[in-house]
Structure formats: C-alpha cells, structure tokens
C-alpha cells in the first residue's frame, strides 16, 4: 500500500535545477552533457556546470544543470532534482535537496533516506545494465546513459532529440549508436513500465535557443586565436586552461593546414614549464608572428619575470589566464576571480598590464581575437582574464560572428619599404607620434636599417644601454603615456542604468554577469533599483571614472577574498574606500544571484 504523502512535491515547468552526483572517472560526464544538450535542443535556456575534483578517478564529482525559461543562467545554489549515482555523497546530495524535490538513485542496492519531505525515485540501474550488457566496461558506462533515458520520460522530454544527438555524436563510430540507444531505452522502459510519470518537474519545448550555440570559453578563446591570426601557441598544461590550447589546436588542424603540402600554418609547442611557454611566445612575437600562451594563476606567477621584460622591452604577447581558486595550488578545479592584481601588476618594478575581461564564451572569442590587435598596437602584454566557470563549462551564447572586412592591426611596424624611405636614424624607443607608442622592426627586415638590440636593461631611444637616470625616467613616463593610450583603445564598460535617480551603482566583471543581472531583477521587484557597470578592460577609461563619480556608493561585486578590482579602482583612480563597497564571494563555486541580492538588500534599506 502506498504511503500517504505529507508534503507538497515541487511542480515546475522549464524552471528547476538538476544535479547529477557521480564518481569521477566513471564516464558520467558525456551522459550528463548529452542530457544538457537535449534541453538546449528543446529551445530551453540551460546552463550545465561541471563541479569536479582535482582527481582522475574515484572522488565525488557533480554536474549541475540549471534550466530557466527566463534565461537566468547563473548558479542558483539549490537543487530540485538530484540524480544520486554516488553512494559516497548520498548524505550531501540528500541534504541539499529542496523540500518537495526528487531524488533518483540506483536502487540495485536499496536504501532508506532519512528525509521524509522528498520524493525518492528508485531505478535499479546497475541490475538492469548487468542483465543487458555482457562486458563489464559497458555495464558501468551505459548505466549513465540509462539514467538519462529514465529522465527523458520522468521529465517528459522529446525522445527524437536523444536519437538525433546520439547519432550525431557517434557519426564516425557508427557501431556505438545501437548500444547507446539500447541503454537509453533501458532507462525509458523501466520508467514507462514501473513508475508514474512525468514527475512535477517537466520540460516543454520553447524557441529560446534560435541563433544560440553551446560552447565553452576555452574553446571559444582558442577559436578566437585562430581568427585573430595567432600562428604560435606555447603552453604548459594546467587546469583550467589546458582546453584553451587544445581548442586552438583543434581549429588550427581544421583551418590551418596547407592543402597542397599538408604542412601547418601554425605551430603549437608544449613547453617544459610556464617560464618557457611565455618565453617562446615573446620570442615569436618579437620576430613578428602572433603568438600566445594560456595558463592559470600558478603559471602567471612563474611568468612574472618575462612579463616585466615584455612590458619594458615593449614586445607584444597575448596571455590567457583562466583563473582558478587560489592562493598557491589552491583549488585547481574551482572557480575564482583572484588573479586580477597578479595580472594587472605582474612583475617587479613599475609595471602595468592591459587586461580584457570577457563575460562569457562569446566574448572569449571576440576578446581573444581583439587581444592580438591590441598587443601589436600597444607593443605590450595583453591578458585575457577568464575563469574556470566560463572557461570549462558550456554556456549558451549568441552565435559567433566575424566581419570579413576586418584587417589585423599589426601596429607600428616599419617594413622594408618604410625603412628604405626613412631618412632620419631609426630609434626603436623614439615616441615620434606622441602617443607613447614607438615604431618597431622585425629582424631581417632591411639590410642596413632598423636593427636594434632588445633588452630588459634601461635603454635610450635607440635601444642602447644607458644608466642615465633621467633617460630611464623619461622612458618610464612614456610608458605611462602609452598606458593612457591603451585606455582609449580597450573596450568601453557596459553601463545599464535604471530609470530611477540616485540609486547605488554596481561594478562587476567577467563571469559574474549572469548572477548580477538576475540579482538586479530580484531586487528591482522589491523596489531596490541599481545602476550597473560591467568593466570589460584595464586600464579603465573615462566612462569608468565618470560612473563612479556619479554615484554616492558603488558596490564592487567579485569572486575573490580581497576585493581586488576595488583595490585596483582605488589605486588607479584615487577613489575613496568608503565609496566602493566590497561584495565578495570566494568559495570556488560560481557566484549566485541570491547571495548578491541578499548582500545588497542588507545595505540598501536607507535607499528605499
């Protein structure tokens, strides 16, 4: 006899969070991605996030998928349906489930769970797969596909989409299509024959993903480097940046192989460490080839000395920093925005660096290509600072676009003809135009003109070693002028003003956008209005200072402990500490809208 239900089950269409709890290395990731992609194909806004340990096999790993019909895709921080496939983490998985939520578990080994306010869905996945597959590896692997099949019925999804996705995925390994479909149907049939369906959470087709794609920031940035004309990638493996270099290689193999000779129009070198990786990138750029490296915090620390050289000798170089949890080795598989200061001021002596701060994979693509133009134009390192959340997770973004009339900006380079015409003596560090940017030459450009000696020691306008303090000071001042020029070339901040006058301002950047916009809407419903400014780059331009100037208080929302962006604003703009209110989140998970709203709500009553 059925027990009488004493709680209300959650009911929601196209608005809930599913969390898959798996064992790392059990092959669950591709099944979970298949599920997320199916939701995407149904035209429903979706954001899959992989919450994984720094481990290859055995530790718990989660995959959280937020589905939201209104398009709020930041982390939500609560779970409505838990697909609990890992007995190690049952306690946590049961604990964090919302009241009235659903717990699906592998009932090959029956369990009682202590909560009486959740729905427990029992499917003997292991037993079913043991019956249907003979090979031990297949039995384990297809258990994952089987629960996806079960979900497709429980959530009332379109079966054809799964068929379509599986045949696309295995287009080149056709013999895998049949067993995958079989596994999918094992889960489906069990639900159809034994359980009541659908549950309270359901999915219904929408049209919201037209013109959208699902892509990770790393893949997009790697692609951006191909479009931006990078020819040499030098890198050293580190989570979460590795897939950026791999993304570059993947697309370079596709688009950069000469058809006639089979030879490559690119080179990718896995360096022995980050010191070498940045050195190679600097050497290549010095020689006139667009080159980059991709790394994360620990790599930035190692690259520091070379970054100072590139700054002072004025060699372009693009560095992708996919931030992870610090300090030190920190939380290698968790997300943070804690390298802001490390990048802005990387290296000893007076140094400052250009940073681009994309908010999502689409901007990763755009800023990646843009970084090569800026680096060449400014003859200095340009950082593209992203993070693990946008770097490694697939995000729904607008389709990528490219304007074919766009030309690479190689900056102020004197080629053979220009040198030939030149009458005065070439001075590598001679500020001819007054914008702080001088002319450079590539090695081998001209038989008798344009050669100079690049060095990290103090130098005069002709790149000659000089210990004259005034000459060095003049050069350092010119670099400040160049940085000012940079502030005019980097992208402007995105400013979103409310209709209301005199409300507080908020500054945020990078992957915080999704949660911030959702928090803004939540607060607006309560009558708290905010003006928003998303900073897209460093150095800050006049719009940034103007926005701060126009507000009594500005919250600075970021994902690090020490309010690094706030510190940077205070240091660079002389903004007072009282004016900039720090709002920080640094637990390694993507920042959540609820948290931002709560923190602002606490401090805003005087404004209502």
């Amino acid at each position, binding site marked *: 006899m059925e027990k009488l239900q004493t709680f209300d089950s959650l009911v929601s269409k196209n608005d809930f969070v599913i969390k898959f709890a798996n064992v790392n290395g059990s092959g669950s990731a591709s099944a979970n991605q298949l599920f997320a992609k199916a939701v995407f194909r149904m035209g429903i806004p979706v954001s899959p996030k992989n919450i994984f340990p720094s481990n290859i096999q055995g530790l718990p790993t989660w995959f959280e998928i937020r589905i939201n019909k209104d398009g709020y895709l930041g982390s939500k921080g609560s779970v409505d349906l838990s697909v609990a496939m890992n007995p190690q983490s049952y306690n946590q998985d049961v604990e964090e489930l919302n009241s009235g939520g659903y717990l699906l578990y592998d009932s090959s080994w029956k369990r009682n769970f202590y909560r009486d306010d959740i729905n427990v869905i029992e499917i003997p996945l292991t037993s079913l797969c043991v019956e249907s597959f003979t090979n031990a590896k297949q039995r384990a692997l297809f258990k994952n596909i089987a629960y996806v099949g079960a979900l497709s019925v429980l959530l009332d999804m379109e079966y054809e989409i799964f068929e379509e996705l599986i045949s696309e995925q295995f287009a080149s390994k056709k013999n895998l299509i049949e067993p995958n479909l079989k596994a999918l149907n094992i889960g489906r049939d069990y639900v159809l024959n034994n359980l009541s369906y659908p549950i309270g959470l359901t999915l219904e087709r929408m049209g919201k993903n037209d013109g959208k794609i699902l892509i990770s920031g790393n893949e997009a940035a790697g692609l951006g480097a191909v479009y931006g004309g990078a020819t040499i990638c030098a890198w050293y493996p580190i989570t979460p940046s590795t897939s950026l270099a791999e993304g570059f290689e993947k697309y370079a193999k596709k688009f950069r192989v000469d058809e006639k000779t089979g030879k490559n129009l690119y080179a990718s*070198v896995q360096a022995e460490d980050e010191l070498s990786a940045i050195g190679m990138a600097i050497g290549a750029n010095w020689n006139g080839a667009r080159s980059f490296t991709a790394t994360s915090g620990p790599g930035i620390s190692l690259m520091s000395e070379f970054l100072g050289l590139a700054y002072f000798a004025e060699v372009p170089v693009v560095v992708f920093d996919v931030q992870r949890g610090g300090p030190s080795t920190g939380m290698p598989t968790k997300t943070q925005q804690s390298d802001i200061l490390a990048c802005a001021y990387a290296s000893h002596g007076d140094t400052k660096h250009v940073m681009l701060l994309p908010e999502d994979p689409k901007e990763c693509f755009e800023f990646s290509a843009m970084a090569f133009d800026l680096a060449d134009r400014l003859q200095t390192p340009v950082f593209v600072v992203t993070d693990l959340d946008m770097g490694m997770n697939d995000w729904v973004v607008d389709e990528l676009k490219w304007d074919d009339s766009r030309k*690479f900006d190689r900056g102020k380079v004197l080629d053979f003809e220009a040198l030939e015409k030149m009458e005065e003596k070439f001075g590598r560090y001679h500020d001819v135009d007054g914008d702080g940017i001088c002319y450079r030459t590539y090695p081998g450009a001209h038989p008798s003109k344009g050669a100079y000696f690049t060095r990290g020691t103090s130098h005069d306008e002709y790149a000659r070693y000089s210990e004259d303090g005034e000459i060095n000071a003049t050069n350092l001042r010119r670099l400040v002028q160049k940085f000012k020029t940079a502030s005019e070339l980097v992208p402007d901040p995105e400013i979103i003003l409310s209709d209301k006058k005199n409300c507080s301002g908020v500054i945020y950047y990078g992957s915080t956008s999704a949660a911030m916009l959702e928090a803004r809407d939540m607060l607006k419903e309560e009558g708290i209005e905010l003006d928003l400014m998303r900073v897209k780059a460093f150095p800050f331009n006049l719009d940034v200072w103007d926005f701060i100037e126009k507000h009594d208080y500005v919250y600075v929302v970021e994902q690090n402990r020490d309010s690094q962006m706030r510190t940077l604003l205070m240091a660079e703009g002389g903004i007072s500490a009282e004016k900039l209110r720090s709002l920080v989140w640094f637990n390694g998970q993507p920042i959540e809208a609820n948290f931002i709203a709560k923190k602002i709500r606490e401090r805003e009553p005087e404004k209502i």
Partner: protein
Amino acid sequence: MTYIQKPINHHPNLKKNKLGLTRRDYEGAVSSLCAGCGHDSISAAIIDACFELNIEAYKVAKLSGIGCSSKAPAYFLNDSHGFNSVHGRMPSIATGASCANDDLLYIGVSGDGDSASIGMGQFVHAIRRQVDMTYIVENNGTYGLTKGQFSATNDKDSPNKYGEENPFPPVDLAALGIQLGASYVARSFSGDRDQLVPLIMGAFQHKGFALLDIISPCVTFNNHDASTKSYDHIREHNDALGKVDFVPLGREITANYEEGETVEVNLHDGSKMSLEKLDSSYDPTDANLALNTVREKNDEGKVATGLLYIDTKAPDLYETLNAIDKPLNTLNEKELCPGSDKLKTINQGLN
C-alpha cells in the same frame, strides 16, 4: 655614457669578402668587458666566421640571457637584431623566434651560470627539440657579472679567487648536449682561434641544434693558478681530438692527408667539416664514442676539444612541427583567418 659606438672610417686596404664587406663591418659596439676576458675573443671569432662565410648580418638574430657573456652580442654584428633577454631564458626566446621565422640564423650566447644553473631546464629542452640555432656557452666556471661565485661547470676542488674549494662536481655541458641529442657538439677554447673559427663556421652552416661549449677564462675572477678554467690550465690540458677545418661549398680540400686520417662530414648547405684525426680511432658521428672519449679525457685531467659529435640527418624543430616552408611571421589575414562562412559552419556544429 654607457654605450660606445666604434668609429666607422675603415682602413682602405682591409680585406673584403664576397659581399664587399670588411671584417670591421661585422663588428658591434665597443666591449665593456674586462680587458683580456675570454668572451671578447669569442666575439672576435664570431666576427671572423661571419666574414669568412659572407653572412649578411641582417639575416642573423643574436640572442642571449644575462651575464658578462650575455652582453657579448652587443659587441658583434651591429646590423643584426639582438635580444638580450632574462637570466637563463634565452633558449625559449630562441625557440619561439625560430618557429616564427626559420630563415634567419640564430646565434645564442650564454654563460655557464646562465645555461648550467638557472637556465638548465630551458637549455635541456631546446636541445631535445632540436631548435635550429648555434648555441654558444662562454664557459668560465664562474659567475662573472655577480663577482666570482662558483658556477655549476666549475670543477670539483677547483678554488675560487679567495681560495675556497668547490665541493661539488661539475656539469659537463658538451657531454649533456651529446646525450640529449644535440646534432652538432663542439668544445673549444677562446684562446685557440684556429680551432674556434672553423667550429663556429660549421655550427652556423649546420641545420639543427649546434652546441659550442667554449672555455672562456674570466681574467678577473677565475684565472688564478689553481683554477682549472684559467688560460694556463686550459693551454696545458687542451687535448684536441683533431684538427678541424671548415670547407666552404665549392672549395676543395687541399691538404694531403693519409687515408684514414681524416673524416669529412657534409653540412646542410653543401659545405664540409673536415677533421684531421690525431687519434685515428675517433669518429665524431658516433655518439657513444664521443661521450666515452669526453669522459675518459676528463678522468685524465684533460679537456677534450674539437668537433665532438655531429649528426647531419636529425630533423630540426621546424621540420618536426611540420610547419610550412614560408616563415609563419609572413602570413597575412587571407592565409590565417578562416572567415565568416567557416564560422557559420562552426556555429551549426554547436547548436
């Protein structure tokens, strides 16, 4: 004034090479190294080699790290681009630069501190990758620029200027080079120009990683009587494995050697290295023999010099990367950017 340019009016009767240039056209700024420093003799030998080979200076890139030795590139080839990078990191600069443009001649100049200590990692990996360059270590067994500390190539027990003995055994860079597969490995002495110049010429014409470990005494900190890196010590203990000659393309070997007494190796561009063997059993294409010989001579307290090892067939990095013949730094938008149509296809694959 910290930079001195040499006067440019030359003696009219100076010998000219095929490009109509004199030796002086290959010079650089006036050296600021100590008078008598071995490094200056190596610069002079590089100038000789460039002059003899009719090298166009602008097709050369000079790269270095930090140290007295690493300053040397400022003192030769004024018309070449140079890059004085950071301590121990020249190999990575060279690797990136040569990937960008394989057509230039890369001359890397380093010190024993620069290569055998702080830069050991990069040194080793540039060799493994077979970067197409000439890598010169100006080896004085000491840190000249920071005033005479032991370097990792200083022999065990060989004292510093203040009489303290070195407690640690040395790194033998040439032996290491052979072991790691450098395809041209030579050792020489800054004071032996006759041996040094042909070895440098051979290295320039060689395709792949050419390592020259050149003992280059530091007159200020490591030239005392008990030092094993002093001029006197090296002169007494120099054990040349053979008399080396560089034979440019189109010139025949004129000297009459008995058969079996010479080895000839054809270089990439058709020129040759010829080796008059003093020890008739030596074969510089045999890596094991080379390693053993270097080690045996070491044990005897001698310094084996000459062309230790050569392999003209090893593919260089650019070849291994399968990069196109045209230098990567010459490619334009049309060649590099896939364009909007391709992006549409990519978009379609992502939805």
